[in-house]
């Protein structure tokens, strides 16, 4: 386990890395021409990155999270309210996880 001094160092460094990524893209984008290939990559990438993030997250999380995600999508489509979609998704994941635990193992 890291010491307290090491922990502080790790937190500070990781904080700097995180902020560098948040601000770095913004600064880098100003260096490229608005219609060049890099600008197009930067514009098109976020949606694809989120899809990849979601796919891996769902792959690793198991069926309760998959069920909750699908319910969130449907509720969002119906209500256009993030809080309703997340609330229903949260409840579905909790209930599905409880159901999984209550099943006899083996």
């Amino acid at each position, binding site marked *: 386990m890291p010491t307290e001094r090491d922990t502080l160092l790790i937190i500070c460094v990781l904080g700097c890395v995180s902020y560098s*990524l948040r601000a770095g893209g913004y600064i880098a984008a100003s260096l490229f021409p608005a219609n060049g290939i890099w600008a197009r990559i930067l514009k098109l990438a976020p*949606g694809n990155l989120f899809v990849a993030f979601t796919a891996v997250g769902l792959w690793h999380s198991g069926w309760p999270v998959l069920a909750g995600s699908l319910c969130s999508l449907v509720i969002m489509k119906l209500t256009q309210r993030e809080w309703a979609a997340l609330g229903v998704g*949260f409840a579905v994941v*909790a209930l599905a996880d409880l159901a999984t635990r209550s099943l006899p193992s083996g």
Partner: protein
Amino acid sequence: MLMGIIAADPARTPLTLGGFRRGFLAALPFLFSNGISGIVIGVAYRGLGLDLPMAALFSIAVYSGTAQAVILGMWPTTPSLVAMMLACVATNARYLFMGAHLRHLFDAVPRRRMLPILYFLADASWFMTVAEAEAGRRSPAYLLGCSVPMVTGWVGGTVLGYLLPMKPQGALAVAATFLPLGFIVTLLPTQWRGGRSWLPWSASAVVSIVVAIKLDSTWSMLVGGLAGTAISVARNDAY
């Protein structure tokens, strides 16, 4: 500090109080959802033996559920700082592209105003700000307004989770870990660009899962996302 960012030069920079208020109100539910996720990370930090100021500082400085969860998994093995930095870059690389995207939305806003706001950039606030801009209301103040409940929920939840006598187990804990993924799933359709999104999105999903299975989960998101982006760029898709 917030008022200082919002105030001056409203004609050139649309940093209006109205935009801030709209963002703040729209993101209020995230006070709860980020709070729940923050509680889970706070409980986990207490379990690792971090003290309360360090736990809170972690969530303030890094402010990223995915990166903090990955680092959390590495903590007991005491990996090198470089390994943690690489994991942080891999999980947060999307911020590079999200920040770049915001540059094109807010090109008239001076850097000295945008750079502090970007400290609070998160997945949900980015989605909401881009959707707001596409509805004809471009406002960095909206991004800042969204961020306040989100940061407050995340950091407040971390502190609360640290102090509460809870264990990071059970159905509620599993449901809490769903929330960071859940809000991306919920807001992802705002990025859908019709039938032309099928191929790049499918490629992103398939490649990321294959990389996660065959190589490494940490980098899979970046590799998968770039595969889909390459298809979009090669086809000359418009954003």
